[in-house]
């Protein structure tokens, strides 16, 4: 079971001999496994670096001397790899590098925020459905089915037009579909956990529903949540970038990688770097989060033990 390894009782006379591995917690084992995976460490390093860049964007702006919205119409379409604009400028003479740096805030922010919202809501619904069963389960799962039946992109388009999103609203829009998958996952896990003896034991000690769910079910669902969350971030960044690209996400002039790409479509016949760099950033970010997510799954997923 998760959380403890079975203690092996020593026979008399064998005491004192050091042949029993000291009990290690599930978390420690998983962490060690993750640390041994070099690819995972590299990918995690990239994610961490991007996160630092995103957070420190206003500081990075200082040595670059350009702001993300600062225009210079005398120097538009400047080609890359030359000082002072190392990644070139766009049609308004805005520095591509600093816009990419600020774009990282949007992409990573939405990625993590959406996962947080979807996981929280999905877990609550999944726990309730799995724990209470019967009609609660029926009703909640039919609602989940409805949300999973939509081709998500159509819902996103409808809602984006409704809300004209910023970072928070875009996260809410994407999470409004994402929670359903999490709910289904948590529910099925709860159904198996519910029948375990320790649940019966705790209940017979007088624990209430809420306590059982939060203190006894939730910790055991946590590993699966970590796995689904770490695999979800990359896909959400992709979806958000696609919506930005369609003009339905973060609105200009706020720099986001997707909207920079859709802007560049008009000019890419003569300024291909405007297309290449933002796409490359999306690709690297999603690749790193996905690789890290895969490693987290290999290390943490109790079903792969």
């Amino acid at each position: 079971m998760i959380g403890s390894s079975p203690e092996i009782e020593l026979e008399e006379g064998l005491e004192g001999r050091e042949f029993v591995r000291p009990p290690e917690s599930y978390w420690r084992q998983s962490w060690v496994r993750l640390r041994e995976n070099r690819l995972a460490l590299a990918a995690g390093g990239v994610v961490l670096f991007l996160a630092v860049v995103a957070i420190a964007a206003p500081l990075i702006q200082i040595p670059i001397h350009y702001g993300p919205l600062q225009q210079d119409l005398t120097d538009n379409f400047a080609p890359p790899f030359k000082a002072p604009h190392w990644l070139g400028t766009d049609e308004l003479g805005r520095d591509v590098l600093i816009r990419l740096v600020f774009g990282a805030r949007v992409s990573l922010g939405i990625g993590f925020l959406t996962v947080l919202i979807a996981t929280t809501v999905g877990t609550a619904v999944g726990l309730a459905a799995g724990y209470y069963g019967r009609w609660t389960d029926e009703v909640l799962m039919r609602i989940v089915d409805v949300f999973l039946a939509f081709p998500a992109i159509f819902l996103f388009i409808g809602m984006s037009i409704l809300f004209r999103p910023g970072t928070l609203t875009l996260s809410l829009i994407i999470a409004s579909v994402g929670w359903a998958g999490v709910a289904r996952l948590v529910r099925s896990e709860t159904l198996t956990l519910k029948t375990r003896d320790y649940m019966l034991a705790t209940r017979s000690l007088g624990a209430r529903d809420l306590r059982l769910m939060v203190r006894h079910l939730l910790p055991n669902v946590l590993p699966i949540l970590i796995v689904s969350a770490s695999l979800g971030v990359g896909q959400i960044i992709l979806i958000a970038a696609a919506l930005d690209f369609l003009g339905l996400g973060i609105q200009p002039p706020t720099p986001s990688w997707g909207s920079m790409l859709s802007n560049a479509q008009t000019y890419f016949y003569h300024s291909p770097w405007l297309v290449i760099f933002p796409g490359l950033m999306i690709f690297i970010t999603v690749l790193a989060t996905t690789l890290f997510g895969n490693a987290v799954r290999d290390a943490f997923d109790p079903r792969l033990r």
Partner: protein
Amino acid sequence: MLGRYVARRVLAAIPVFLGVTIVTFLLMHLTAGNYVPGLALNPDLTAKDIARIRANLGLDRPLYVQYLTWLGGILHGDFGTSLIDGTSVLGDILGRLPNTLELTGTAIFMGALVAIPLGVVSARRRGGALDNFLTLVSTVGFAVPQFWLGLLLILIFSVQFEAWHLPWLPSSGAYSAFNGGGPLDRLQHLILPGAVLSFFYISQWSRFVRSSMVEVLSQDYIRTAWAKGMSERRVTYLHALRNSILSLVTLVGLEIPGLIGGGLVVEVVFGWPGIGLLAYQRALQYDYTVVMGTTTFAALLVIVGNLLADVLYAWLDPRIRYR
């Protein structure tokens, strides 16, 4: 027995379909409300005219009446008329459907055609150089944004090839405006968007076939087949592949909704006149009867697709009990 199973699944799908229509309707109502495109912009219309147009469209009636009218229409195959050009929504959808199916159908077909052998080869030589390489390719396929890949392909095969005086590929549309529409012309237009979309399916499904093959290859009956002295070819393709294809059937079934919505972004990038492009363009114009129509139509296909996948799986796999 199979009949009862199908009946149960169909019954279970009905509330889901109703839920979908309710969510779609409420969402569009919240988005557009009583908005009618162009109405507020016309200075010749008096308040009375506007009220009369609204009444003609039925927008003055209570919400539930509007919903039930709309739902009733759908059940009779009437998705209403476009608010922009007054054409039948179902007609618009059906008019675009062949283009969308041409694109996504090709992508899904090519995806399965390439993914199955790749997955089989990976599974047979697990951990080998080819397997590792294919793992890398499929991870890339997961991480690369489709619209970016599309733009890069346009940049290379349309823009640069033309600059280099090579035979270049068209970057937009489903056929040429002049003297177009022939099979060869359509094929040329299909290559780039088709490639982007099939790359996506290949990277997903090849992993799937691989893991399913790995599982099947470790089973007892495979060992028996080896023990009988069967050739590697026969064991792999005749015994193992047949059983791992089973799970791919479900996966492809689940991709039936992708036939409509999965190509939306690619359709926009390549100006492919399909349902996705229709929904996207009309959404920007607040033509919400069309948006509601395409969304419901696509969701209906999802539900039917899931149903088909379930039934097909139960029919193919005798281990599934008809509950």
